[in-house]
């Protein structure tokens, strides 16, 4: 499934959060949205799940604007992981993951597999609200996996925030595998080096506009990032011969 953004403009009163963005997240690819704070990354992702009504333009899925889809029909094609999930009440981890199939037929094996993939089975009976932020993010990812199909769309807003390094890398690899299996992955990230390593495509946002879009290795270049973030970036080659993006901390 392909998610197409057409001349999107999102406005909150007189504030323009997103201005004239056109691009597309393709099936089988991991696409990252990067940019400094408050450039509209989360707003763009919220528009992609139909949570924000555009002032002009639209986000299109299967020929129809996402905000016009019925919630249940959209849920069978598209899953979402917010920056921080909030669940009122004392729901256990298993109950939260099961809610991923709220609008879909119950499927215990799918739920078990999602929990196993995100390594949250041992947390199954613990209260979601008593977990650390990183653990909650893993559970929320498991909930999204329980909801999504192999060729579905997964939209994630900083899904790795709060995760330890090991789980962050595993989650990145998982998203990569899902994309290779036919899913469409669109995520906002802060870790530019990880983004350059795992993503196929990148969208660089600046001031609510799309500054650059294309293959991740071309978009996430030190010169362009320095210009956007106001911090000097460098490319370094590790002992194993891998190229990495690092910010340079000037004294």
């Amino acid at each position, binding site marked *: 499934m392909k998610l197409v953004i057409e001349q999107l403009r999102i406005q909150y009163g007189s504030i323009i959060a997103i201005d004239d963005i056109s691009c597309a997240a393709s099936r089988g690819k991991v696409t990252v949205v990067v940019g400094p704070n408050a450039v509209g990354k989360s707003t763009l992702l919220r528009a992609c799940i139909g949570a924000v009504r555009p002032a002009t333009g639209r986000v299109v899925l299967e020929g129809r604007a996402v905000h016009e889809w019925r*919630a249940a029909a959209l849920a069978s094609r598209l899953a979402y992981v917010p920056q921080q*999930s909030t669940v009122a*009440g004392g729901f256990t981890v298993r109950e939260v993951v099961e809610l991923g199939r709220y609008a879909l037929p119950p499927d215990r094996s799918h739920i078990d597999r999602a929990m196993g993939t995100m390594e949250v089975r041992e947390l199954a009976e613990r209260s979601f609200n008593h977990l650390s932020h990183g653990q909650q993010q893993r559970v929320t990812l498991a909930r999204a996996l329980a909801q999504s199909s192999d060729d579905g769309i997964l939209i994630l807003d900083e899904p790795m925030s709060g995760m330890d390094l090991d789980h962050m890398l595993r989650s990145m690899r998982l998203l990569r595998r899902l994309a290779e299996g036919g899913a469409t992955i669109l995520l906002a990230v802060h870790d530019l080096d990880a983004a350059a390593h795992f993503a196929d495509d990148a969208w660089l946002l600046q001031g609510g506009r799309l500054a650059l879009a294309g293959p991740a290795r071309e978009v996430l270049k030190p010169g362009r990032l320095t210009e956007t973030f106001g911090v000097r970036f460098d490319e370094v080659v590790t002992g194993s011969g891998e190229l990495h993006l690092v910010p340079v901390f000037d004294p």
Partner: protein
Amino acid sequence: MRRAGKPMAMLLVLAGAACALALLRLCIDRPPGGALSLAWPEPAFAVFRWKAVAVAAIVGSSLAVSGVLLQALLRNPLASPFVLGVSSGAGLGVMFGMYVGWRVASTSVTQAESTTRSSLAVFASSTFSALIGGIAVLSIVFGLGRRRGVLDPLSLVLIGVVISAMCGAGMMVLELLVPNRLRGDLLMWLMGRIDQGIDGGALMIAVTIGAMGIAVAGLMGRAMDASTFDDDEARSIGLNLPKARLLMFVTAGGLAAMTVAVAGPIAFVGLIAPHAARLLVGPRHSLLVFAAALAGAAILIAADAASAAIELHAGRIPVGVFTALIGGPAFIWLLKTGRGQS
């Protein structure tokens, strides 16, 4: 949250407790100035006690389910019809209706005509006024209890308290405006009372509204589970949020309004019963709704039994006094232990 045991077993325990308390209430006998005794009532008294049990059960369960709905709707475990001012709004509506009814009766119709107005019609008009008052307050609290577009638990409670105080002031004014002979009745009604002399038709209406509201809430169990996520996430898993919220809103308001019309504004049952039920059966709403209904019925039947058993020279203590005495500390406990955080 630790859960006491298997949910279905806990549901049966609650049902058993409610039945046992109902039996106790039926058997409590304390004539004015006499001693307390337990005996199966004679047929002449039995009908009144059965009515008291039925009123307490339907009012208690409706308040509890209204509380469950409001807690899910507002994602706030401190929400209840009383705390959010819905009961006060409904109360103001009922008193305003009563006042208008008295004015009309005293100015435009003859005494004979006014006495022919059946208690059923009075109850129906009270329920309607309560509904308008309750829904109006809920709309105000819902509209003002937001910060940057997001429902804020603390703001909701504070606005509820303020609106409740304003409605209380309105009720005091109306209380002063009615004649002395009505004032005593109004005062008892304001403290929350279980009327064992309720008109049969009025009781049927109350039972019908209560049963329908509880059934709707039960059918909305999964939607209420989904609505515990924030808006974006709830929508993303497939919940039609506007429709679900409207249904929760109207059902919660309707149930609370009916209870106020029947028994006056009774405090805290809508708060304690959902929390007690949640401790026993967990947070899944399809079960929680029925567990809370049973807990609410049990609490109010117990309060009415206490009211029937304790004799003061001034007469019976209204049930609202007992629920406030239990519910007040419970509310503080919820705040202090953090269980009141969403």
